[in-house]
C-alpha cells in the first residue's frame, strides 16, 4: 500500500482548517491508498466528470464520465503496482477550484519516476469534481515512464 500523508499548505494547516474540497480530496486519496478506487470515485468524481491527462504518453488524452476516469486511475495504479508514493506538498483551494501539488515517485522494472505532479480540479455545485487536469512540470519524464 503506498504511504500517503495529509496535504498541507506547509503553513500549519491542520485538518480542522481545511476547506471542504481539500477535505474531500484527502478522504478520496485515503480510499485510493487502500486500493479502493470505487470509493475514490464516489467521494470525488461527478458522474459527468471530464479528466484531462496531459502529455504525449499512452495515457494522455481526455476521459469522459466517472467510469472512464476510474479506468484511467486503475490504469495508473496497475502501471506502477504498489511502488507508487504520493506525497502531498501543497493544496490551493478556492471557491470553485482546487490545485494540488504532489511529489510522486514510482518504480517499474528498469524505470524510476520522481516528479512533481499537479492535479487541478473544478468542483460542481454538489461538491464533486466536474473537470480534472493532471499535469507535471516535467511532463517528458512522466510520459517516458508511462510509455
Amino acid at each position: 500500500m503506498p504511504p500517503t500523508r495529509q496535504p498541507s499548505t506547509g503553513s500549519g494547516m491542520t485538518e480542522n482548517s481545511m476547506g471542504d474540497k481539500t477535505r474531500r480530496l484527502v478522504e478520496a486519496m485515503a480510499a485510493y491508498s487502500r486500493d479502493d478506487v470505487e470509493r475514490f470515485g464516489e467521494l470525488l468524481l461527478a458522474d459527468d466528470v471530464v479528466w484531462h491527462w496531459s502529455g504525449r504518453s499512452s495515457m494522455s488524452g481526455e476521459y469522459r464520465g466517472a467510469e472512464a476516469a476510474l479506468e484511467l486511475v486503475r490504469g495508473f495504479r496497475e502501471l506502477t503496482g504498489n511502488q507508487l508514493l504520493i506525497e502531498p506538498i501543497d493544496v490551493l483551494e478556492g471557491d470553485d477550484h482546487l490545485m494540488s501539488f504532489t511529489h510522486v515517485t514510482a518504480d517499474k522494472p528498469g524505470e524510476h519516476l520522481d516528479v512533481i505532479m499537479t492535479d487541478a480540479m473544478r468542483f460542481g455545485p454538489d461538491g464533486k469534481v466536474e473537470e480534472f487536469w493532471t499535469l507535471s512540470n516535467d511532463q517528458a519524464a512522466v510520459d517516458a515512464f508511462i510509455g
Partner: protein
Amino acid sequence: MAHPNVELLQRFLDAYADGDREALEGLLSPDAVWHVGGTNRLSGDYRGRDAILEYFDTVQRETDGTLTLHPVEVLANDRRGAVFLRVTAEREGRMLDVAMAEAFLFAGDGSVQEFWAHAADQAAVDGFWDDGEQYG
C-alpha cells in the same frame, strides 16, 4: 485580504492583458522556466526571462494581439499559485476558446520562477497553432 502572491498573479495577468512588456519582465525571475504543453510548434520549455518574453511576443504577433486571458479564479500561497482561466484568440480566421489550468512556482522575491499549464481541449490549442491539414 488577498495573499501577496495572488496580487502578484493579478499584476501578471494585468500586464499580459496590457501588453506591458516592462511589467512582465519585472514579474519574471531571470532564470524562469515556462513549460508550454501540447504538441504544436510552440510547445516546449522556454528557459530564461528573455526566451519567455519572446514567446509572449510570438503569441501576440501571430494572433494580431487578440489572445486574451479571462481569469476565473486565482489562488496562491507563499510558494505556489494557480490560475483557472479561459483563453480566447483569433488567428488566420480560426477561433480559440478553451478553459485552462495554470500552475505557478514563485521565486520568493515577488517574481515567477516556473509555469506549467494544460488546456481542457489541448487538441483545439494544437490545431489553432499548427497549419497541418490534419486539423482542418
